[in-house]
């Protein structure tokens, strides 16, 4: 009887492990191809590692370090050659083509520039998720880089980027939130939120 129980339990455990392995394989087959998790990409972006501010960009130019960087233009304009020592031009829509990815993965440091800051950041997000390392996106856009950054950056533009407030919003927009401090900034959703009462376990 003991032997029978042993065998039965071993088979049950084996079946369980096999079920887990099968589930893993199925998930692996169904998963799209990413080389970095969504959370890892989010962390890089949230840590301000990706956006290259104008003064940081200018510093690279001033210190003659642009030779260590490959500037990749991911916009639609045709004539952007000759701005930087190492320069590539890849249309945004072709960014994830195999040969482009292979070429980008072989670069040491990448600075993405686009016609809009957000396009360069979206490109950076996609490239990071595909395992391309050391990717940064230039703040603002190609026009700004050409006309204001390269000729000599004005001090007031040093920290300039699209995510800066440009107005005193509450002055224009009469709104409950603009006149009173909210008690809980993160919280303002209809009822039905999740409430969990965690409990300690034991045996």
């Amino acid at each position, binding site marked *: 009887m003991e032997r029978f129980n042993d065998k039965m*339990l*071993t088979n049950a455990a084996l079946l369980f*492990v096999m079920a887990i392995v099968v*589930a893993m394989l199925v998930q692996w087959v169904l998963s799209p191809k990413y080389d970095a*998790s969504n959370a890892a990409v989010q962390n890089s972006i949230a840590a301000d590692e990706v956006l290259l501010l104008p003064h940081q960009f200018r510093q690279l130019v001033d210190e003659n370090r642009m030779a260590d960087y490959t500037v990749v233009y991911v916009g639609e304009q045709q004539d952007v050659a000759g701005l930087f020592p190492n320069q590539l031009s890849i249309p945004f829509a072709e960014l994830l083509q195999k040969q482009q990815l292979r070429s980008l993965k072989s670069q040491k440091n990448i600075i993405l520039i686009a016609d*809009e800051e957000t396009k360069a950041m979206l490109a950076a997000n*996609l490239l990071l998720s595909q395992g391309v390392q050391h990717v940064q996106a230039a703040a603002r856009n190609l026009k700004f880089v050409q006309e204001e950054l390269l000729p000599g950056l004005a001090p007031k533009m040093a920290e300039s980027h699209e995510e800066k407030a440009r107005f005193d919003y509450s002055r224009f927009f009469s709104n409950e939130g603009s006149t009173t401090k909210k008690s809980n*900034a993160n*919280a303002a959703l209809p009822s039905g939120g999740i409430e969990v009462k965690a409990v300690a376990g034991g045996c």
Partner: protein
Amino acid sequence: MGPLIPQGFVNADLNLFFAFVIGLGFGYVLEQGGFSNSRKLAGVFYGYDFVVLRVFFTAAITAALGLLLFQYLGWINHDLLYINPTYLWSIVVGGVIMGVGFILGGFCPGTSIVAAVIGKVDAMVFVLGMMIGIFIFGSFYEVFQPIYTGSFLGSIFVYDSLGLSRDLFVLILVVVALAAFIITRKIEDKVNEIKDAPSGLFHPSYTGPFALMLGMALLVFFLPQSPNARWYEQNPDTLLEKAAAGAQYAHTDEIAFKLLNPKNNDLLLVDVREPADFSNFSFPGAINIPFEKLLQPGFEKLLKQTDKQIVFYSYGSTLADQAWMLLSREGFENIRVLKGGLNGFFDAVFAADHQTESKNEMQQFDARFLENAREAFKTGQAAQKVMTKKSPVTTIVEMEAPPAGKGGC
């Protein structure tokens, strides 16, 4: 019953039902394993029966391996697990009391209940003693409190204290457990003077379970902590295609119209800026989920539950576009981004000159609408029309651990 209830797999109303079913199974297994027998339980201290050690070690490594594999598969969120905080003094004193009580009484708390239920008088007395002990502890809590809450170390992990990786620690734990199984069986055979004990390294019946445990431990060790991609995530090429087409954008006139006409407002505006910025100004009815918190289970679940179209906004489009990209990859379909963000919105509504010389009727209509919208927003009409009653939402990730978070057996 975490984490199934917080994840929404199980209705919270079924909490007690599941507790009952698990309790039923636990009691059955303890009784069938001979754990209602105090002689068997105390055998671990005298060397003639190590089944207690083997059962609890098996439970520990099975739970550890299962937890890690389930986490890898995305079935369990490690962040939602409640980690018992460590109070050093209460562990030391409690451990000594438990050990002495186990040797003298022949039971631990759980097994004494099992034995009492099947009618064992010694177990009933043990349970009675336990109740009296609990009563005394509760009555004189102030006296015991310095020991009970002394040397608080927080929710610490052994592997962190040892400077090991989590997966290496589990592998070592499994190897130690298997070694303990082999050694204790040898001791048992010797103490019980079993003549026909197998001469090999371990009992033949252990071969299968040993191979499975070690195999699972190695699998956990070599797998990354979580896969780079989940099966439900959207294909990168699809994301690229959508981003290239700018399909995600909602424009100022739509947002302005819907803010001023709540009956037509099918949008949930989500502000992804920092809480301080949200406090200074936000659209009426908007909620704030800072970008770095977007993938936290509570917030993600919150967004999944809404039947409205989600529109992310920030000062520009950059951060909101990143939020869109993250959640699109997670498989969200009903999400958009306010093109140009707050800066673009204010440019269009307040800063732009709405006088147009165009003869195009649509352009004239747009200009008139934005002119009217400017006045409406200035006089607070949107705020009056949109329900802005605040009802704080506490998400699971922000919940604090319960104060009396001590468990044991």
